[in-house]
């Protein structure tokens, strides 16, 4: 097979700076202008290396007694007088990295363009639906959360600021995407942020109802925090997909780091506040309009018996608070 192809000059990250077709052998590479491939690198000799066919017809790179030599790959490898080249082989002369690729070099499959309108998140309909859902939820929350007489105008106007913040948030991510990817992904960011808000609403409602029905489950709030953390991580993961060139794995790491950091901060501040003294008693009793028959209960006697645990908790606190005897 004729080993015709390209000699490519690469930068340190592997990006192609220059590409030169090989249509005959030998090819000379060096700093001098009579070379087929001219390299502007002070560490490269005027005539540094020749690409040619050996006796058996295989392609090789041969050092032309250069000062700094020929090395395989890149970096500080041993210099070689001669090097067999296959399609994709990299070698270094002076500070310059070169790569040989044959015309029939195998290619990666074509990537699907996200802007072709096939993305779920990119659909303006989905974005509009998600946005309206958020607005409706905010209105509903405002309505159910007020215990005074309200007007439609009042209900609709109240969540406007929150709603505008959603668009500002999506806009900032879009801007980041424009800078990094040179693309606008506004609908995607609106959809992602909206779904996250809806999910927060849902998890909050579920947590309240669970706590109302099962106040005896001790670590219910931990599950709530965990759920919120997952939503947060998903949010960051989704935004990064449309605002960075990070690979899937890196995005996952970034998303969970951000989420874990925020949860960690909230835990730490919670812990710091817990040890602070306070005269306030917090009644955490949640009540919901549910038929009494559906509410699991315990007898007053058992409640009173179980309060013994409260006593031992207080005993521990009192021991801690006691001034140390001299």
């Amino acid at each position, binding site marked *: 097979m004729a080993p015709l192809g390209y000699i490519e000059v690469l930068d340190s990250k592997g990006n192609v700076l220059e590409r030169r077709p090989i249509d005959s052998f030998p090819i000379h590479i060096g700093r001098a202008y009579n070379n087929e491939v001219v390299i502007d690198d002070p560490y490269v000799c005027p005539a540094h290396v020749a690409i040619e066919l050996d006796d058996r017809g295989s392609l090789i790179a041969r050092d032309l007694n250069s000062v700094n030599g020929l090395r395989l790959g890149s970096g500080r490898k041993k210099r070689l007088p001669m090097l067999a080249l296959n399609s994709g082989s990299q070698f270094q002369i002076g500070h310059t990295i070169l790569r040989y690729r044959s015309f029939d070099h195998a290619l990666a499959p074509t990537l699907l363009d996200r802007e072709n309108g096939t993305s779920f998140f990119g659909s303006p309909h989905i974005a509009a639906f998600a946005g309206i859902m958020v607005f409706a939820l905010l209105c509903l929350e405002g*309505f*159910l*959360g*007020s*215990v*005074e*007489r309200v007007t439609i105008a009042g209900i609709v106007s109240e969540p406007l600021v929150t709603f505008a913040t959603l668009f500002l948030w999506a806009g900032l991510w879009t801007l980041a995407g424009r800078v990094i990817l040179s693309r606008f992904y506004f609908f995607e960011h609106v959809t992602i942020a909206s779904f996250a808000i809806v999910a927060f609403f849902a998890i909050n409602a579920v947590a309240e109802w669970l706590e109302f*029905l099962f*106040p*005896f489950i001790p670590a219910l709030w931990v599950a709530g925090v965990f759920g919120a953390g997952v939503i947060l991580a998903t949010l960051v993961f989704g935004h990064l997909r449309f605002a960075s060139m990070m690979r899937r794995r890196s995005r996952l790491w970034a998303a969970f780091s951000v989420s874990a950091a925020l949860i960690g901060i909230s835990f730490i501040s919670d812990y710091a506040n817990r040890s602070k*003294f*306070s*005269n*306030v*008693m*917090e*009644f*955490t*009793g*949640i*009540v*919901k*309009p*549910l*038929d*009494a*028959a559906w*509410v*699991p*209960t*315990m*007898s*007053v*006697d058992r*409640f*009173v018996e*179980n*309060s013994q*645990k*409260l*006593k031992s*908790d*207080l*005993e521990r*606190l*009192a021991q801690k*608070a*006691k*001034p140390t005897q001299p």
Partner: protein
Amino acid sequence: MKCKLLFSVAFLLLTWLLWAPLNFAQGQITSPTTAEIFKQFSEQVVKIEVVENGSGAKASVGSGFFANERGQIVTNYHVVSKLIHSPDRYRIDVSAPSGQITQAAVLGFDVIYDLAVLRTDRSIKGFLSFETTPVAQGTRLYSLGHPQDLGLTIVEGTYNGLLQHSLYPKVHFTGSLNPGMSGGPTVTHAGKVVGINVATEGEQISFLVPAARAFSLLEKTAKIEKPSTANFLEEVGRQIQANQARYLDGMFSNTTPSVTLGPYSLPTKPADFFRCWADALRRKELPYVVISHDCSTDDYIFVSSEQSSGIVRFYHQLLSTEELNPARFFTLYASQVQAGNVALFGNEEEVTPFRCVTRNLQTQGGKLKGVLCARQYVKLPGLYDAVFRGATLGARNVGLVTTLSLSGVSFENIQALTRRYAEAIKWRR
């Protein structure tokens, strides 16, 4: 002749009429009796100062009086409470009217009735004895003490009997007691002590500890020569513990009267020493109504300037609406159920923070959301403050939030009262 007699009588009457108001006015300004009383008994009244050892400055000032031939002094517990809580940090200086200052030691105290007995080593000129016969309402009394540290003062007033609705018997004295007079004696014109100045509640309304309580405390401390200061706090705790049974036993049992609020029948005024109030929030602009019923004991036990105890309070709040849908009504209801309570007293050295436990409860009448919060006294072992809150479940447009608050009680009493209180909430069918 007849005419002359009539004239003489008329003249006498006129003279008397003319002179009487003048005489009366003179009596007001310089009653020889009050001056005499002051002269006769002021020697037995002393000023008591609790002095901080480090700075040598006084931390509190009160009054006291010599109450027996051994020179024991009666005063209020609250006058010397700083020393009882930190015997190493304070000392008591007793100043006689002559200006002579001697140190005193606490022999015993009654934290419930706010009394203390002190001892000095100095010789005394005399002492005040206690009135043992009943005093009639309206009897003129004379209160002695050092108001605002302004020097020994005598205040006139009248005896108005024992308080009717008091957990701890107190004499109602109509006269102006002021801070600093605490611990001083209130005497009859014969110098017999009727009560010990203890508290005031605004203009002319003052309270005295009945003399009998001081007398029995003196008897208890008669044999004590040298008290152990180390056991003071234990003794405070022990006295508060022992006092509970007197007012908590049987509270909220079946015999407790009930009040009807909406569909609920609820406990009210469990004893004479409770005072109950009711009110309603009904405003046109609000789509709901709140009816409240609040009962509380007036009395409290002074433990330290940072802590009071012995108060029982409970209140019901009935919320109802004709207008709000269940979801909105429950926003209101939940906020009322979760409304945080702040304890008035207590700092980190005296009490632990509150810890709460929440459960759904099945009482004999129906279902309740129950929250029990409690905190422990750090220095007085075995004593707690506690609040139980119950909220009825199941209804859609009516809800009851009821709260029972206890202070300075044992955990066993918290449990017993919580049980009885929760079961005393009844649903009317």
